[in-house]
């Protein structure tokens, strides 16, 4: 097996195209494993993983936990509520304390951009913690690398390739970590990426990443092979960026009528959880257009690949 160029998975921008291929290929073998009658392999026996979640999460956490358990890792879970964080402990102290209990990997979800990069740099300063691997399970509006990997994996499975495909990301780009990781990942793999959403939710200067922006949903959908529909992140907005969900749905909601107006069939993805009837209509989410549940299934395999590959990187 080829090795990763990195000790941590902090973001897609920090890994190479080769790393991505290695992870996707490994994920393909694990997908086969989790479809066997006995889904468990001993690859991470005696490796202890802490899932450290400073922000609420259902599916990412569940997906990581299943990935860890299917690799036979020992798993501990930590969530910020009711922890010493509320007593004012710093992030470095919290994680050093967890690592002092002989934990090997930290999967972290955090509300602040760059928290995982910061943590990985901090841990280097502590000899007892320097061995630990950090996996970013979403840091604020920065990156969500395993989501981007599972999205790429799902696209590759569905189309047999990624290079040359037109991928549209629709919705709240500004408050999304999925968007940034997806842009980096898809571009490294040779896809064309376009963004669509209200101008208030498209960060200024985003075109410096080499993506195009289209404000007209119909034109954007007409262009793409795949539309990755993002969740409206009301909880991250400091001011209302559009007047109402109703009006958002009127302009950018994807429903049967919108898809029927296209002269081609496109594939719909969504990182979940879906605001049904807002960014995506329920019947589309459940239709033949959608590969949303495949994404969820692939998430476990991709996260197994990430944990497995990082655990085998030599110090």
């Amino acid at each position, binding site marked *: 097996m080829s090795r990763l160029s990195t000790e941590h998975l902090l973001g897609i*921008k920090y890994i190479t195209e080769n790393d991505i291929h290695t992870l996707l290929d490994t994920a393909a073998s694990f997908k086969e494993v989790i479809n066997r009658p006995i889904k468990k392999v001993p690859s991470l026996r005696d490796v202890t993983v802490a899932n450290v979640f400073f922000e609420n999460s259902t599916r990412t956490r569940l997906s990581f936990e299943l990935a860890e358990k299917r690799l036979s890792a020992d798993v501990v879970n930590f969530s910020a509520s009711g922890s010493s964080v509320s007593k004012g402990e*710093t*992030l*470095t102290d919290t994680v050093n304390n967890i690592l002092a209990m002989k934990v090997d990997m930290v999967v972290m979800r*955090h509300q*602040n*951009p*760059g*928290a995982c*990069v*910061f943590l990985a*740099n*901090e841990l280097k300063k502590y000899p007892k913690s320097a061995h630990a691997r950090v996996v970013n399970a979403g*840091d*604020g*509006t*920065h*990156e969500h690398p395993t989501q981007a990997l599972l999205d790429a994996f799902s696209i590759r499975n569905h189309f047999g390739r990624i290079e040359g495909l037109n991928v549209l990301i629709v919705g709240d780009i*500004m408050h999304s*970590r999925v968007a*940034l990781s997806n842009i980096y990942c898809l571009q490294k793999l040779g896809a064309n990426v376009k963004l669509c959403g209200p101008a208030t939710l498209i*960060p*200024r*200067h*985003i075109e*410096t*990443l080499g993506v195009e922006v289209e404000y007209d949903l119909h034109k954007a959908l007409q262009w793409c092979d795949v539309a990755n529909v993002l969740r409206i992140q009301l909880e991250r907005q*400091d*001011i209302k960026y559009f007047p109402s969900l109703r009006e958002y749905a009127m302009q950018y909601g994807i429903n049967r009528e919108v898809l029927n107006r296209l002269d081609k069939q496109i594939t719909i993805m969504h990182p979940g959880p879906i605001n049904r009837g807002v960014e995506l209509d329920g019947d589309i989410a459940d239709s033949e257009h959608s590969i949303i549940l495949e994404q969820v299934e692939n998430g476990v395999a991709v996260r197994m690949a990430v944990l497995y590959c990082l655990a085998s990187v030599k110090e």
Partner: protein
Amino acid sequence: MNILFRNVRVVQPESAWHGQTIDIFIQDGIISAIGKALPDGDAEVIDMNGACVSAGWFDMSVRSGEPGFEYKEDLQSLCSAALDGGFTGVLLMPDGAPCTDHKGAVELVYRRTMHSPLRVHSAGALSREMKGEELSEMYDLHLAGSIAFTDSARPVKNAKLLLLAMQYAQSFRRPILCISMDAYLAKGASVNEGPEAVNLGMKGIPAFAEDISVNRDLQIAAYAGTPLHFMNVTSPAAVDQIAAAREKGAGVSVSLGVHYLAFSDQKLNTFDSNYKVFPPLRSEDMRRELVRRVKEGQIQILTSDHTPEDREHKIIEFEKAAYGITGLQTFFGVVCQTLGTENLEKTLHTFTVAPRQLLGLEVPRIEVDAEAELTFFDPEAVWTFTREKNRSRSENSPFIGTEFKGKPLGVYTRRQWVRSGL
């Protein structure tokens, strides 16, 4: 106690000795003789080997943790760092808990620093508790010794309050210092808006948030007919607006922390909060434009904007981290690194004459019978700023480990010779 500095080159265009290498004899704190090969007399002789001397340096924007946050910086460690960096005078921003919005705080600063060789002047808070809601007792603060009024790094959101402050301070002729930033455009963001912010997944503060606010404040100043000083203007376009108003005769001026000349937002790619300052570090292009505006005189005053912060407020996640960096000891090194030493006397003007003129303070003279307040320095000396050399109680300096060319050697002020440990 008499002291004789031998072989110093005067860099002070206002002095008759400018450009000459001479000896300076100081008797009881007064320059008693200047000339070549002066007799030793009974003086302690210090051979400066051709190093430079200028009027003592003045830093118009420094912060201490005292009162309230002495673990970040107390007034003693602040004085020690400032003297080590070559300063003989500073203006202390009103931050503190409680802040300098009452005369007791001014008196505390005076009492705690009266025996230091450093002259520590207090800026009073413009508004009560620096909340930007109602005026502080500015007249009483003025009587107690505040020489300027400001809400420090907090922009005054309320235009009426800024106007009232400027009008009110007119009768006792004290300058108002402000940071101009549109609060709504800056809300929720802590870095410069640009490609770097996109890469970091962070919201940015656009430079025009400064431009429109500077425009507002210039109009308030024109209406009030009183001077206004803008601190840390990091948008070149905003600097240009102020320069244009100045050309038309408005009493407005600009100061800038030297880290804005040294760094751009490219430094943020590791989420190192030692680069988190307010206003944010701007783009590389804007940084270059700011350097040019200092050289061309549109930015008149340079400061260290020394802001000590302890580890618990700095070595944490970027968005949670406090703003500010320390800079008293590295100030001159950064100045030489970013502006060069070709036009030294013009550069020195930005931290000797210009801030004192703005604040109505006497500028130290290098003349016989003048009180000696001098800074000695070597613009060619190479040195490295290390943790061991740091005199501040805080370590939030991005310059630890940086090699500089240009070094303060020591100061003579308030009848004392203080050699720099750098």
